[in-house]
């Protein structure tokens, strides 16, 4: 299906036999390939990659069973004691919870290890009945929202332009009443809205965890608020995303209690304290996630689709290939190399071990590929230094 050639790094330049692969521990399984929403900024349906049009709208049961067997093979082969399964879309609850439950059941029946299953939804189809059934099956629910008020979610609309917010808010209220089933909220940053308003309104929804995501962008398609320029470590330069996040960090840090977990901040603080990261956004830990599409294609993470058409494809599928074969794919291997995958600028950067070049997806530049600093380079440094400063003062006071 690839219509564009992959760039030289990592595809032509990386020797994938020269490193020891790390087994996958997170399986992102597409339940539905379509979505009932049409968010104006969606990289999947509004971005350069239209591959979703060629795939089945829904994963057939035969494919679910095949995926489950492949996961079981991987778990056995690497003696894994725990995996994570993310039921994804499109909108995974598009036709109700049955396909999600069936997929999770298929994996749990096939594997001999602990399975943490989570469905990531826009919330609009999370009825009380659907939540009851997911919770009863031990499937956690994560919500995608842009904030905790209608105005923050104005870009989240259905195909007729109607706002998703009323149904999403009802879903958030249901989840707040079921904390064991509530995985948290993912919130993509919009510079046009006030960071503290977004943060406080999300807190009112009582999520156990929040993550703030930088909008997917790269050197070819810079994010709103950042000028287009060649890849590099440009300084000095404005840092609107770093400033936005630093404002939220201060509110969170100074709350006087742990109001909610915020993954990005906790990971940066952990890295500054000498621990490796569990998030792809920062740090140098090997990436252990793989995606399976509705047709059984084994892919790299969806967010790569924001770079160019076909960017997430591997040419592999669960009917003909094992997940071990996917570990040898250059795109997968490049994300398990730590420092060896970084650009010169990042290797010489004073915050490099914490920033880690940022999210791999944000490093892309046409013609060369993924060996560049992040397009959010200055914002990441601003945030890392801000957290380092606050953490150092708090840690000193603790001694």
């Amino acid at each position, binding site marked *: 299906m690839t219509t564009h050639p992959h760039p030289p790094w990592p595809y032509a330049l990386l020797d994938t036999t020269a490193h020891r692969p790390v087994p996958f521990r997170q399986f992102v399984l597409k339940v539905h390939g379509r979505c009932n929403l049409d968010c104006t900024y969606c990289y999947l349906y509004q971005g350069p990659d239209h591959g979703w049009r060629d795939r089945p709208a829904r994963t057939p049961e035969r494919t679910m069973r095949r995926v489950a067997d492949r996961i079981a093979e991987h778990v056995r082969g690497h003696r894994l004691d725990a995996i994570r399964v993310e039921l994804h879309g499109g909108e995974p609850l598009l036709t109700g919870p049955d396909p999600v439950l069936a997929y999770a059941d298929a994996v749990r029946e096939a594997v001999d290890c602990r399975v943490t299953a989570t469905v990531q939804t826009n919330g609009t189809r999370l009825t009380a009945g659907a939540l009851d059934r997911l919770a009863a099956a031990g499937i956690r629910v994560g919500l995608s929202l842009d904030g905790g008020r209608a105005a923050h979610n104005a870009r989240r609309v259905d195909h007729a332009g109607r706002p998703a917010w009323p149904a999403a808010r009802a879903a958030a209220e249901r989840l707040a009443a079921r904390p064991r089933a509530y995985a948290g909220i993912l919130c993509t940053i919009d510079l046009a809205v006030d960071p503290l308003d977004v943060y406080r309104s999300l807190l009112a929804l009582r999520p156990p965890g929040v993550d703030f995501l930088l909008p997917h962008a790269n050197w070819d398609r810079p994010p709103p608020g950042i000028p287009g320029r060649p890849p590099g470590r440009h300084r000095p330069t404005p840092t609107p995303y770093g400033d936005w996040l630093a404002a939220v960090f201060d509110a969170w840090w100074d709350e006087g209690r742990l109001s909610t977990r915020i993954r990005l901040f906790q990971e940066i603080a952990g890295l500054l304290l000498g621990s490796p*990261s569990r998030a792809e956004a920062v740090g140098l830990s090997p990436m252990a996630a793989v995606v399976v599409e509705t047709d059984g294609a084994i892919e790299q993470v969806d967010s790569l689709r924001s770079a160019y058409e076909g960017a997430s494809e591997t040419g592999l599928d669960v009917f003909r290939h094992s997940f071990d074969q996917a570990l040898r794919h250059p795109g997968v291997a490049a994300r398990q190399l730590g420092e060896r995958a970084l650009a010169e600028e990042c290797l010489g950067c004073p915050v490099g071990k914490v920033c880690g070049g940022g999210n791999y997806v944000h490093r892309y530049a046409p013609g060369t590929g993924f060996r560049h600093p992040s397009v959010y380079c200055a914002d990441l440094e601003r945030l890392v230094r801000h957290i380092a400063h606050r953490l150092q003062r708090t840690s000193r006071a603790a*001694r």
Partner: protein
Amino acid sequence: MTFPVDDTHIPLPEIAPPDQTDHPVLAAILTELRDRQQDPLVVAHYEDAP
């Protein structure tokens, strides 16, 4: 609030994890990091999952 990064050559401070703290957020982070020490290998997860 936007301003240029102007300290880009300065190394990050070395921050050792304190043994104990009254700061609730730092305390929660330290607890999670202690759990993490049990992992033989820490891996990164996809960010589009909570």
